[in-house]
């Protein structure tokens, strides 16, 4: 890692300092503090109502809050407009103007963000929508709309990207495409703060995962270690020949696994960072694993 990159990563790009947001008597975000260094990807993880979206809305100036939020050193409350110029935002489900075409939408937001009009076309190409430019936004699929939202967020080349459950409404193929684009954006050096329910999205993208519960930070860990930190288990379905099913269950139970029969296979609970271990165990017992699936 070169010196410039080191410096960038030590520079705090997003800072929440004792942020509290109450709705009536309920604290949606409670004394929340978090620092995201430049070029870092941080995921907020937690159940519904944990305060993830509320924290993001505070950062964007959509909600009033107590405490301090800084973007690239700028107070998000006092210098809201300048702070938001440094942010690209992708909401859970983007609400755009359905009559405007994708190209018109990109041009409108390019001008609003002070980006050159030429960037509107290049950004559509970057997110793979250049062939949909003439289509009204209302006619785009959910996946295309989210890609458009990502493209709009990149207009003006902001250093910070904020994403709120960006893939929650997408099917598998659209989600994979979106995550691929997001990985490219991360590799380009953007600072990313995002919320997600999906473990694989956090393991794939996040340098750091912040576990939230009742508006507070419950744990902070590397993204790849989230499941382990939370003591989460994954279920693997192993397909073995029918005549070996009973023997496979005995071997797995003897190896300390929770395993049960399921149709033509066995379901085994595994640690998220050791999903292939039962396959090796069965292999050593001379039981062939024909196929496997992650549940």
């Amino acid at each position, binding site marked *: 890692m070169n010196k410039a990159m080191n410096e960038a990563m030590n520079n705090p790009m997003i800072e929440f300092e004792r942020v509290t947001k109450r709705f009536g008597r309920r604290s949606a975000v409670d004394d929340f503090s978090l620092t995201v260094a430049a070029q870092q990807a941080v995921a907020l993880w937690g159940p519904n109502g944990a305060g993830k979206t509320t924290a993001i*809305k505070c950062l964007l100036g*959509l909600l009033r809050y107590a405490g301090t939020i800084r973007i690239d050193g700028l107070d998000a409350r006092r210098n809201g407009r300048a702070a938001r110029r440094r*942010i690209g*935002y992708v909401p859970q489900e983007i609400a*755009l*103007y359905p009559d405007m075409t994708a190209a018109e939408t990109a041009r409108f937001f390019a001008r*609003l963000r002070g980006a050159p009009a030429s960037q509107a076309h290049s950004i559509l190409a970057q997110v793979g929508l250049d062939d949909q430019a003439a289509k009204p936004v209302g006619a785009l699929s959910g996946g295309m709309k989210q890609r458009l939202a990502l493209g709009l967020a990149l207009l003006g080349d902001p250093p910070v990207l904020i994403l709120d459950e960006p893939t929650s409404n997408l099917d598998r193929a659209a989600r994979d495409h979106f995550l691929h684009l997001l990985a490219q954006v991360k590799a380009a050096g953007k600072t990313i703060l995002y919320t997600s329910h999906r473990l694989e999205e956090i393991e794939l993208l996040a340098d750091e995962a912040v576990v939230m519960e009742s508006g507070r930070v419950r744990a902070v860990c590397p993204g790849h270690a989230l499941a382990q930190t939370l003591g989460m288990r994954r279920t693997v379905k192993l397909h073995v020949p029918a005549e070996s099913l009973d023997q496979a269950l005995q071997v797995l139970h003897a190896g300390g696994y929770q395993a049960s029969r399921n149709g033509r296979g066995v379901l085994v609970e595994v640690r998220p960072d050791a999903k292939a271990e039962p396959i090796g165990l069965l292999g050593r017992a001379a039981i062939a694993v024909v196929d496997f699936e992650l549940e």
Partner: protein
Amino acid sequence: MSIATVWLLAQKELRDALRNRWFLLYTVAFVALALGLSYLALAGAGMAGFAGFGRTAASLINLVLLIVPLMGLTVGAQSLAGEHERGTLSYLLAQPAGRAEIFLGKFIGLALSLLAALALGFGISGLVMAASEGGPADPAAYLHLAWLAWLLSLTMLSVGLLISALSRRASVAVGVGLFFWLVFVFLGDLGMMGTVMVMRVPADALFWIALANPLQVFKMAAILDIRATLDVLGPAGIYAIQRHGDWLGLLFPAILAVWVLSPALVAYGRFAARGDF
């Protein structure tokens, strides 16, 4: 504040308004009725064909009093609450645009869309007069009448925006807007007549009470515009002419301007202070 951002948002608002089916319906109705009233004004006098300026203008005043407040209140009421309901407002607020720019952009865009609708109605009516009689008898007065109608539409737009800023749902905002339309157009008149009859209000007080309703202000300004007197309004009109004379030409637009600015400023204050998007 960035003028470029305000203009960008105003252009988008204008574009949206011109695609709004309710707005288009009101505009078509206004244009069609303007034409129809021009024709009927003379037909009522026993002659076939299009009326002269005086009668057409008088008909247009009544038409403006009925339809223009409806247009202004409806588009204003739909704007902020509608965008909030669709989710587009929170996305817009997450962009590097200030709330003052967003509000001003909306106001200017909607004001221009109302101007376009009125220009179409007054323009076609004026062209028809020009074709049938060689032009309006008093083009300056006709243009002034159109200007007053626009000013009236802005007062209603302003009230509509205030309703919108205080509402969470567009349907509620439009409903409240329609109630205000009834109050301004019908209940205001009836209420004033009832008050005068019951309380035996003197002419000067009646004149000042009338100024509290922007539609009455427009009506007086428009009548003054085409007749140069307010005799037709009875004692209050005679009082106004005798007491304020030449100042009325300035007083009426000034009161309409106050009606434009006051609700708009309160609406902006509410929009800027709101912290729950």
